[in-house]
């Protein structure tokens, strides 16, 4: 059984597991999906890519940022059957660029080169958060690899 204690202005409640089994009746305000202030995940409400998403690490802002953006945009907007099949050139450019900066884009790891380096770089309180928001990404998922357009890179709904 839970019990309660008051220490001056501070109230302390101890609860057992059973106490918390009943669903909460606390009311939360519904989120507005179109709230302009809210941070968005990888994909903005209008379908564009959010280059500032923390999930991308430093991919869009580094020396190969331009190539990355082109490749990923191409992939994102690709309507081919094999998504991104027309983007090979872009991805090749990106890879070439990344090879010039092995320190930044280590090649040992196929997926998520940014994870090693940029990843922890700017820890931002991410935008996924809120229950209503789309699952924006563990860092691993949404960023495309340098090798090939992975299916997982497709934006989660939008």
């Amino acid at each position, binding site marked *: 059984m839970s019990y309660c204690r008051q220490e001056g202005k501070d109230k302390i409640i101890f609860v057992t597991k059973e106490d918390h089994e009943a669903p909460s009746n606390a009311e939360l305000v519904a989120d507005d999906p179109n709230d302009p202030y809210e941070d968005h995940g990888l994909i903005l409400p209008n379908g564009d890519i959010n280059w500032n998403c923390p999930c991308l690490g430093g991919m869009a802002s580094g020396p190969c940022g331009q190539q990355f953006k082109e490749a990923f945009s191409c992939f994102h907007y690709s309507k081919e059957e094999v998504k991104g099949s027309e983007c090979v050139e872009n991805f090749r450019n990106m890879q070439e660029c990344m090879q010039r900066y092995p320190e930044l884009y280590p090649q040992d790891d196929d997926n998520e080169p940014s994870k090693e380096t940029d990843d922890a770089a700017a820890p*931002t*309180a991410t935008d996924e958060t*809120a229950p209503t928001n789309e699952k924006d990404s563990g860092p691993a998922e949404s960023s495309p690899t340098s090798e090939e357009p992975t299916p997982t890179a497709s934006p989660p709904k939008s």
Partner: protein
Amino acid sequence: MLKCRTVWKKLAPLARNSSTLCHQNAKRAVLRNEKRPGLLQRAQMSAGPSGGGGTDNTLYYVLVGATCLGGAVYAYSTLRGDKQRYQDRISEIASRPNKATQEQTEIQTAAPEATKELAEEASEPQSVADEESVPSTPSEEPSPSAEPPAELPSESAPEPSAEEKTSEEPLVTSEPIQETPVEGPTEPSASLAETTEPPLETPTPEPSEPFSSPAVVESAEAIPVAVAESTPEVSAEQIAPPVAESASAAPTPAAAPVTPTPAPAAPTESTPAPVLEHAPYLLIGGGTASFAAARSIRARDPGARVLIITDEPDLPYMRPPLSKELWFSDDPEVTESLRFKQWNGKERSIYFQPPSFYVDPTELAKVENGGVAVLTGRKVVHMDVRGNKVRLQDGAEISYDKCLIATGGVPRNLQVIERAGDEVMQRTTLFRKIEDFKSLGKVSREIKSVTIVGGGFLGSELACALGRRSADLDLEVIQMYPEKGNMGKVLPEYLSNWTTAKVRKEGVRVITDAVVKNVSFKNGKVEIKLKDGRTVKTDHIVAAVGLEPSVELAKSAGLEVDSDFGGYRVNAELQARSNIWVAGDAACFYDIKLGRRRVEHHDHAVVSGRLAGENMTGANKPYWHQSMFWSDLGPDVGYEAIGIVDSSLPTVGVFAKATAKDTPKAAAEKSGTGIRSESETEAVAVSVKAGTATPPSPTHQTDDYGKGVIFYLRDKVVVGVVLWNVFNRMPIARKIIKDGEEHADLNEVAKLFNIHED
């Protein structure tokens, strides 16, 4: 419009001269005319002989006509001649520069007097120059004829062509143009004199040369257009081309004579003389907020050129590991490598990016897709907001379009320590930077006893870190603070006491209710006398008593400083003034939900830096996404928090009995990420638990605050939440604060967190 004014002012003397002559002639003509009617009248009134009057009239008309014609011809020839004479003078001056000084003078030019409204003009060249400069001009009276000639100069500009007389510094180019409205008639003559430097420079390879071309286009186009507008009486077509050339030549030199004094490149530590004169995005301070802003700007503005100026010798790095992970590293070379192991086993450096990520400042202007450059070891001492430029300690001036101030702060010191003399000061560390970490690491190996003054985040974390090593190092670790328990200002008393017990378990000798009264150096030991009479003898002091925000630029920049919280006062969009934003520790900002505050946490630096970067690229978003913070004190105590977490507020804490599974270490291992807050953020450094060193702590006490959630209330609304040994639930806490609702039963709210689950 300004361009019109400027050009008009520029040509004013010319116009004046010619018009004066015109006027004089005209006046004479008019006067004669006036006299004529008089004479005619008299002639008529006198009813003189019409015949004689007639011939007289004719004669007079002829004379008047001739005079007028003569006047007009004279005026015309004068104007024509003026252009020629102007040209001659310029070429004459152009030949002079061969004796002029080196580039630096010219570089320093950033023209103190120049550029009141230089911003746009100068920026155009930097950013997508050509495209922008073209659209900017057509809005005014388009003079197609002016465009082609303008294009020509731009074409040839890139080649070091002396005859072009183009300036290298774009800002210089535009400056004089802008200047003219302000400076007035003296400008053209001044600029003529100034032509000296730039033409000399053009032959020499200058990094910013490519810049001159867009700049020239900009100025050249501006001039002809402005000229067209402002001098209707003079044929624009004719004037434009020559003026374009002379104008572009004139502006360029503007800087040189203007700044004859700025000593040629003061010796710089990191980079050779004129490094960069203009940065579209200038970030003052090279910490977390600055880096986050740089990244945000680069993500949103393709090809952005960002310059970071920091007075530290290091590239941007993250601070939390300096008081946590780096101390737990097994690597003896850790002070050099500054690498730490995250829980997922991956090692990383505290530097956000390796050096190869950054562009060399001298290359910043040229590099194709832009980049981020870092000027280390330089301090900004003066900020000219009207002129949109800053001055460094070595005298160099850099102009900007958008500026971010992310200067953070300096650790506070206790007055008693400052007054204690050199012996004590040498044995005191104010911990904040990499160098402090290195020196403390070194010192801790040499001494027998260290005392940490301060019971907040930094003090407690350092105490725990050193405490853990105390056995290996044979080091006595003492922590003293005026509060009753560790984190006394953050956690409610019961929790603070509990935490203090844990810290003591880490091997730290904690002295609470300790107010330092006097510090002295006696018999080779530092002696600390407390107010209540106790004395502590130690070898070294680490002062962790707060941070003083760095607001030295407030005076020169005319920025407001907040009296309650310290720091620069900014609005909800983190803007202090036009084109100036502030982020990180130094920003006292308006939080729409929680009111005005200043936050000194890592995640806040990231969030605010990112937001500032977004707003610098036009987003205009207010501070909305609440930042969080975390701390780990040993393997048993770890918490995440968000919002206003002030122990003076009434709190409601809901706790569950903790099992062995509920520790930071367990949470990290289970989630497999090794980083407690990784789901929260991209990746965040978290305490590395040296699991081997500490015994598993049994948590079976009656009042065991093993894990739970604590709500901080202000007027019955939850404004802060602490997740005590409960992880990966920050989104829920964030939502509750965002809602800002009054909840009758906080136990119900606590249910949302599922504290019994892992």
